[in-house]
């Protein structure tokens, strides 16, 4: 389970949710306990645990329990470095093409339906 290779699909799915993105952002600043992660979120502890499970399944986050405290941290090597760059390039293209669409809409000649 620990060393399972995370799939990009699971990662995208994990990050498609604003709560989970907030959790990842928080962990980007350093490790945190589950209760620290839950504090700014307006939801029950079981709901937070469910989000955490998805993040762990995606390989982006791992957690370990010491005594009664579960500490979560981001897994910076979840994606191979090459995958990161290639994926970043793909995302860069997607953003460019989205902006191209906005530009085309804004400059559409008047008088056409």
């Amino acid at each position, binding site marked *: 389970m620990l060393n399972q290779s995370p799939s990009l699909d699971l990662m*995208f799915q994990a*990050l*498609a949710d*604003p709560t989970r*993105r907030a959790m*990842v*952002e928080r962990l*980007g600043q350093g490790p945190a306990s589950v209760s620290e992660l839950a504090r700014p979120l307006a939801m029950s502890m079981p709901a937070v645990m469910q989000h955490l499970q998805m993040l762990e399944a995606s390989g982006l986050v791992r957690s370990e329990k010491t005594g009664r405290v579960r500490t979560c941290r*981001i897994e*910076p*090597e*979840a*994606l191979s*470095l*090459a995958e*990161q*760059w*290639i*994926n*970043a*390039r*793909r*995302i*860069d*293209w*997607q*953003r*460019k*093409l*989205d*902006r*191209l*669409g*906005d*530009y*085309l*809409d804004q*400059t*559409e000649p008047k008088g056409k339906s």
Partner: protein
Amino acid sequence: MTERNTVHAVFTIERTYAAAPARVFAAWADKEAKSRWFGADKSAERQPEMDFRVGGRERLSGTWHGDGVLVRFEAHYFDILPNERLVYAYDMYLGDQHISVSLATVEFRPAGAGTRLVVTEQGTFLDGYDDAGSREHGTGWLLEKLGNSLEAA
């Protein structure tokens, strides 16, 4: 000593626009129009150059918000069929590091009154991924971009 490695990747991204192929093509062919969307997620753009003809070159550089690293894009046009197709090769540099060499093919296919745009990139991604600093930077950058793109979706 830098550990040398190369990784090859091919990917395709498609979009359908309501605008006709001639308008979409113009957004790639005209320097001013292209500056409105192509490099717009970088700040401090430095004097872009664009010579839009076969054999012509394009240069663009700027820093991404916040991190101060200069990103340089240098392209060379190989094939230009107005309103139909573009093929260009491009280099990417991050600071002094040469991070990739790619071939980009852009096809403008009619789709009703609009355009189906198909961008295919065939890339060789070069070494320089192996120092811990850029690795962490890469992860943060990826997550930020991923989040932004998902929010925009």
